């Protein structure tokens, strides 16, 4: 309830509005000194020209066994067996025993205990020499939190910015320049040798960590390029006497067959992104491709997108999406998949192993598997994806040289690769407490699941490999099998090596357009409205973005 004094505050603002408004109306001459609102038209950064900034890449000389499965990049290699012995990678304590390091990282699911209540953090902090204090934030709303944090210029010593949030953050280039330390002098060329673990990262991931022609962050290289995977409950689909769909018509028919509202079972979560991918809608830079005549074209304008919208509208109309997901953004689709209330669900690859390991203890025979990628319209399928890092770790500006070096040493420790003792501790916690050793490697205990939530992972990077887990012995083979098959169909990026800050008008125009398309997909507007929606989108910054992308291509001589 507002109190009367709140009304007084309102009067203040009102008076200032009326006062200033009157001035503006009365004398335009007085406001002659004011500029017009600037149009932020975006910017292009050609990363190929930044080669001189990058750290020298140098493999470690440690005695870590070779991977069992060699993959096609950007898919990571994999181990099917846990190494018999671990090696010590770093002898010295990285921390100088200074003040605690404040860090912010995302977490999905329940938040782990913080500070001294978390014995995992205590154990690692003891190894580091300088404790790291984490503020873990809900991963689903992490972008909102970041936006507020950056605009308030109140950043912690180490800040994790997930790659997929970068494009959504307004004026991110400005924010990086104003708030974070330039890491070029610390890491460029041979300087990186002080941090040998960071020196193993692929050059591409460093290249993506440049903003304003400077090396601004430590990347966390990706282990898989795909943003979306269509998962299905293989056990339940088989029980219904079916197998996974191989064509788009089968997807619909199987969806219809497994949907049974009387039993509380529906086929799908909101799988629109996957439906677009199956229809070969472009996905590069959030949905751009180059037409035959060389001009850029956005997904909304393509016939493939129209087909995808049509299909998805059919799915909604047939009532194949779980009503909870239709009714509220707060619905937990993963939970519905676990409990068998939906049978198909699109998610990131990271969902797979965690869900399988956790749920198979509860549901005997639980088996979640990806649906192999197919094309809805014939020919080879198309996979969205890129090799941009999972996340970036930024260092707060103005902490001083000694402190920045300490922070980099901490990140270096956290970046030790698979097969080292440091990695093992960071990933699985303390033996006998957070994990129990088996012949096939460590198994996390209840406490381990509760306390370990990738905290240190999100302030570091590592040369990625896919590691075996005793609970899910087939996972590495299954996952890399899917990935290495799918990676052949990875979409080519005409703007590879170019980094964009898209025009503000275009960014602002995307959400309203998506709203209108949601209306069409969910049957509140006819499909024929799509043309009008696209024309509105072009006026709302679409053509401006096209211009930026076209100019970037001609400037790069492509």
């Amino acid at each position, binding site marked *: *309830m*507002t109190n009367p*004094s*709140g*009304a007084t*505050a*309102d*009067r*203040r*603002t*009102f008076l*200032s509005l009326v006062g*200033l*408004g009157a001035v*503006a109306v009365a004398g335009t001459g007085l*406001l002659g000194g*004011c*500029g*017009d*609102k*600037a149009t932020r038209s975006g910017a292009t950064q050609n990363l190929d020209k930044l080669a001189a900034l990058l750290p020298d890449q140098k493999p470690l000389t440690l005695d870590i066994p070779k991977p069992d499965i060699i993959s096609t990049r950007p898919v990571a290699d994999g181990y099917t067996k846990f190494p018999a012995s671990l090696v010590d990678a770093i002898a010295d304590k990285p921390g100088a025993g200074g003040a605690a390091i404040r860090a912010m990282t995302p977490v999905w699911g329940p938040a782990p205990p913080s500070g001294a209540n978390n014995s995992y953090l205590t154990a690692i902090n003891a190894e580091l020499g300088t404790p790291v204090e984490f503020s873990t934030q809900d991963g689903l709303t992490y972008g*909102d939190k970041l*936006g*507020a944090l*950056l*605009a*308030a*210029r109140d950043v912690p010593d180490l800040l994790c910015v997930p790659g997929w949030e970068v494009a*959504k*953050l*307004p*004026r991110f280039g*400005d924010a990086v*320049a*104003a*708030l974070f330390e330039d890491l070029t002098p610390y890491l460029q060329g041979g300087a990186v040798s002080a941090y040998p673990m960071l020196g193993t990262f692929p050059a591409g991931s460093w290249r993506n960590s440049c903003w304003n022609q400077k090396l601004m962050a430590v990347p966390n290289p990706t282990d898989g390029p795909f943003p979306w995977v269509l998962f299905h409950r293989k056990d339940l689909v088989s029980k219904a006497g079916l197998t996974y769909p191989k064509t788009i018509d089968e997807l619909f028919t199987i969806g219809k067959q497994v949907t049974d*509202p*009387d039993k*509380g079972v529906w086929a799908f979560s909101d799988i629109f992104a996957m439906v677009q991918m199956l229809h070969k809608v472009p996905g590069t830079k959030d949905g751009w491709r180059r037409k035959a005549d060389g001009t850029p074209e956005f997904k909304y304008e393509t016939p493939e997108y129209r087909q995808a919208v049509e299909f998805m509208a059919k799915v909604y109309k047939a009532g194949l999406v*779980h*009503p*909870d997901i*239709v*009714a*509220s*953004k*707060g*619905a937990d689709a993963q939970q519905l998949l676990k409990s068998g*209330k939906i049978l198909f669900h699109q998610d990131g690859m990271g969902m797979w192993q965690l869900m399988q390991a956790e749920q198979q203890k509860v549901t005997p025979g639980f088996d979640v598997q990806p649906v192999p990628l197919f094309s809805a319209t014939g020919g080879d399928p198309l996979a969205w994806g890129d090799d941009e890092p999972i996340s970036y770790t930024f260092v707060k500006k103005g902490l001083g040289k000694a402190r920045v070096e300490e922070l980099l040493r901490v990140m270096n420790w956290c970046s030790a690769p698979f097969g080292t003792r440091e990695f093992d501790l960071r990933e699985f916690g303390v033996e006998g407490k957070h994990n129990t050793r088996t012949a096939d490697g460590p198994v996390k205990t209840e406490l381990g699941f509760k306390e370990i939530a990738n905290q240190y992972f999100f302030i570091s990077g590592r040369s990625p490999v896919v590691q075996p887990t005793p609970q899910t012995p087939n996972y590495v083979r299954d996952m890399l099998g899917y990935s290495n098959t799918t990676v052949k169909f990875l979409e080519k990026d005409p703007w590879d090596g170019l980094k964009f800050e898209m025009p*503000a008008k275009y*960014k*602002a125009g995307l*959400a*309203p357009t998506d*709203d*209108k398309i*949601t*209306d069409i997909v*969910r049957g*509140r507007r006819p499909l024929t409205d799509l043309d009008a929606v696209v024309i509105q989108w072009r006026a709302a910054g679409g053509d401006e973005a096209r211009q930026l992308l076209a100019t970037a291509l001609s400037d790069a001589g492509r």
Partner: protein
Amino acid sequence: MSSDQASRTHVTAEQPPAEPAPARRAGAQRRQRAPFRARLRRDWPLLVMVAPGALLLLVFHYLPVLGNVVAFQDYNPYLGDSSLQALLGSPWIGLDNFRDLFADPAFWDALWNTLSITAFQLVFFFPLPIALAIILDSILSRRLRGFVQTVVYLPHFFSWVLVVTFFVQMLGGAGLLAQKLRDAGIQPPDIMTNPDTFIVLVTAESVWKDIGWGTIVFLAALSAIDTNLYEAAAVDGADRWRRLWHITLPGLRPVIVLLLILRLGDALSVGFEQFLLQRDAVGRQAAEVLDTFVYYQSIATGDYGFGAAAGLFKAAVGLVLILAANKFAHVLGERGVYSRS
């Protein structure tokens, strides 16, 4: 507190020992009041008690008001070395933000939705806590009343995510109601995803969440009504309804008017999370309110000046409504939120 009771306490606070004097004389006396030091010595415990509240008000209400200047700027939070420098260094653009705001058809859509929801809730939500308070007040058993009060207060402390989830689990397509209807062979109605009835749905959610909380003030007001009045009326042969009409409701009138005025001042705020969560379910056309509009057009795009302009507009409309409603209350002979002494 009835209106003459209130003015009486008002006067006695000014000059404790004197007899209740007419308002005009009290005003004349105040001009020749005790010197500042004497008043400070007399009133310092009161000032100390007020200080924390005043400080909070200053820090969290008055200081942020200054930030409203970004409505007239092309505000860039990353200019200079600090937030203050960013505020000072951002270019002034006059009324461009307001021009953009008023030229945006989406803004008018959002405004229309907001006003519709406010009007609807004023009719179908605002009276309900009064009715509930009267019913609660008539429960004689203290324990039962305490229990019922606790139960109806509780939902106020749930987050919107929980409230919406609860409604989805009860009334959604996979919810309890739909399952029961399907078991009985009836096609369940579309409650959670129908844009046409969305206004009823959000009001129902708000009622469920906040009806109990809304009764608190009314219960306090009810307890201040002199029970002798009821007894006297009962002796004179007034039945329940006459007592309600002639004693209870007039006793509540000042509080009802006060809350109504405050609600009007908030007319352009109908909530945020509730609408964000259900936006995809019913579409932007039905679920876009001013606060979600500001979120998508300003916070999400980093155009803070534009958002501040929308906020100022909200504040201006709220103030006009409060002033108008207050004036109207005076015409009806009520004290309203405040009055000139």
